[in-house]
């Protein structure tokens, strides 16, 4: 196999450059992508140890909280929703770009999606798994979590379907299920290829697992025919789902009468923010992955630049929403709303507000410079402040709004306790543990889709 043909494909022309030997290129793609599956190096073990260490800290903190009671968290009157809910919204938000990239960009036939979709979908699944922990962590008696499920209680009363918290249960669990199914469908053909990898020896448990999860996929025409249909419909179902899930999360707040929450722009504002943070997290994850697994041939700077443009675009929407929110507070003439925003900008938590403003409005503007947009180091560097800024956005919305309500007698401040911060750290460990496991057991790019592109040109 001459590497020239592959390079033609990767660097590849926008035109339908005819690949001289498509089969050889496809074989090479398989070889390159599956190279990451198998025996991990030292860097992997260090990263895994750090992640698991963080999970350990989080687990100890949570165990302590369950044993002692919710009093060990900093939440109190009037700030009854603290860092746990901030983390919940943050992780649900991270989850959003995965389905955006896999479903919405699929429907729009945006070619660069095939470079990120597998990693982004994996990120989605793991981020929802992380987010799902926080409503549980936030419960004083976590063993009663099933009270949220729709079934009648001892007095035959059903749950209240008018409560946004119940919508949230439905939205997030639907999102988790659909993302897992969508991810798995894309993976099935790739898993069936993994069965015959050199690294996976006969009789090894890994081989058996790949066999089972492949479902006996053989690549017959019938299978591909239904697969094509299925993928299309799943994308069509998942696209409105993405928009709905973070809208529902935003209604957890917007349905309340608290000033700073009770706004009609919350749904689109949250969705844009979610995609913004999700794209940043994709950059955080994919850039090191591309380097470590030597995927430069497949994920080009052009592809990363497209993602950067998406980041910039959603960043602009987020910035617009921040300004509209302020403008409405001033223009509405509502004294509580006005005071709330003055308090955000100049009150006890002004540092958090301005951190958010600088990270989320300031940094994406730098992406207007083509040179910076095409610098991989810069893209990685910028993804971190965006993640931090988006965490603070949720902090501002949730905590500042609650700290200063209608009645001055009921004003109060909140400081996260060490337990809350420990659990937050644990959530990052939990997320990265899954992600690291994914990069070593499954192909990090969709081999099937890359092969398809060989035939169709890019």
């Amino acid at each position, binding site marked *: 196999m001459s590497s020239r043909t592959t390079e033609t494909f990767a660097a590849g022309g926008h035109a339908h450059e005819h690949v001289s030997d498509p089969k050889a290129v*496809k074989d090479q793609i398989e070889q390159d992508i599956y190279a990451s599956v198998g025996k991990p190096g030292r860097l992997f073990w260090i990263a895994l140890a750090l992640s698991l260490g963080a999970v350990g800290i989080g687990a100890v903190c949570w165990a302590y909280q369950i044993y002692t009671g919710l009093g060990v968290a900093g939440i109190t009157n009037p700030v009854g929703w603290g860092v746990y809910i901030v983390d919940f919204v943050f992780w649900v938000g991270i989850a959003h770009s995965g389905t955006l990239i896999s479903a919405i960009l699929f429907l729009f036939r945006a070619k660069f999606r095939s470079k990120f979709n597998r990693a982004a979908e994996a990120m989605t699944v793991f981020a929802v798994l992380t987010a799902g922990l926080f409503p549980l962590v936030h419960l004083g008696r976590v063993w009663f979590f099933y009270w949220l499920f729709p079934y009648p209680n001892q007095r035959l009363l059903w749950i*209240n379907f008018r409560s946004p918290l119940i919508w949230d249960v439905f939205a997030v669990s639907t999102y988790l299920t659909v993302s897992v199914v969508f991810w798995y469908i894309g993976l099935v053909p790739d898993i069936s290829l993994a069965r015959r990898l050199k690294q996976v020896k006969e009789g090894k448990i890994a081989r058996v697992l790949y066999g089972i999860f492949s*479902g006996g996929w053989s690549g017959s*025409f019938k299978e591909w025919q239904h697969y094509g249909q299925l993928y299309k419909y799943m994308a069509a179902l998942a696209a409105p789902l993405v928009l709905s899930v973070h809208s529902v999360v935003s209604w957890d707040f917007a349905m309340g009468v608290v000033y700073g929450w009770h706004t009609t722009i919350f749904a689109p504002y949250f969705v844009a923010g979610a995609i913004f943070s999700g794209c940043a997290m994709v950059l955080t994850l994919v850039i090191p992955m591309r380097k470590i697994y030597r995927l430069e041939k497949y994920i080009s700077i052009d592809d990363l630049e497209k993602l950067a443009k998406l980041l910039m675009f959603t960043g602009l929407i987020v910035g617009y929403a921040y300004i509209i929110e302020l403008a409405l507070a001033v223009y509405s003439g509502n004294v509580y709303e006005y005071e709330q925003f003055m308090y955000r900008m100049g009150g006890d938590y002004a540092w958090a507000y301005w951190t958010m403003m600088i990270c989320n409005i300031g940094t994406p503007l730098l992406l207007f410079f083509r040179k910076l947009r095409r610098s991989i180091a810069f893209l990685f560097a910028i993804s971190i402040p965006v993640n931090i800024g988006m965490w603070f956005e949720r902090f501002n919305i949730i905590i500042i709004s609650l700290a200063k309500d209608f009645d001055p007698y009921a004003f109060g401040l909140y400081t996260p306790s060490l337990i809350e911060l420990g659990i937050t750290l644990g959530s990052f460990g939990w997320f990265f543990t899954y992600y690291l496991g994914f990069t070593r057991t499954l192909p990090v790019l969709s081999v099937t889709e890359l092969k398809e592109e060989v035939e169709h040109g890019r």
Partner: protein
Amino acid sequence: MEYRFDNKKDFMEKLEALFKDGMRLKRMKIYMPHPEHDVEHLVEKYEKPSRLKFFTLVGGLTGCLTGFAFTTYTVFSWPLVTGGKPFISIPPFTVIAFELTILLGALFSFAGIMILARLPKISKMFAEEVHGNEYIIIIDDAR
């Protein structure tokens, strides 16, 4: 009889010739390394298209109906006014119905591929059969 091709063009020419000769999917097996829309269009000139869409449709409708029916059932199962809202509160129930439309639409579609493509095939899970990156047509000579 078995035909193997390295490239799509030759494969499609052969396939078209076979179909024109009256060969049908019932009597042959086609293997491809990845989905191919051109091949799908070709085959669908002679064969029925995938019926997966009915699974999606039925799933989506079931979800939507379940969402409204279930919420309505629960409010009348113990009528209790909450927040001064009408018993059947359409806007909030729409959220539940919407989520269930998507959920069941997706799950039914997934069940659809399992049923239509006869998956999972346990015998093939551990089979050594390797098709690689070739396009293969296998014709059943028995009949």
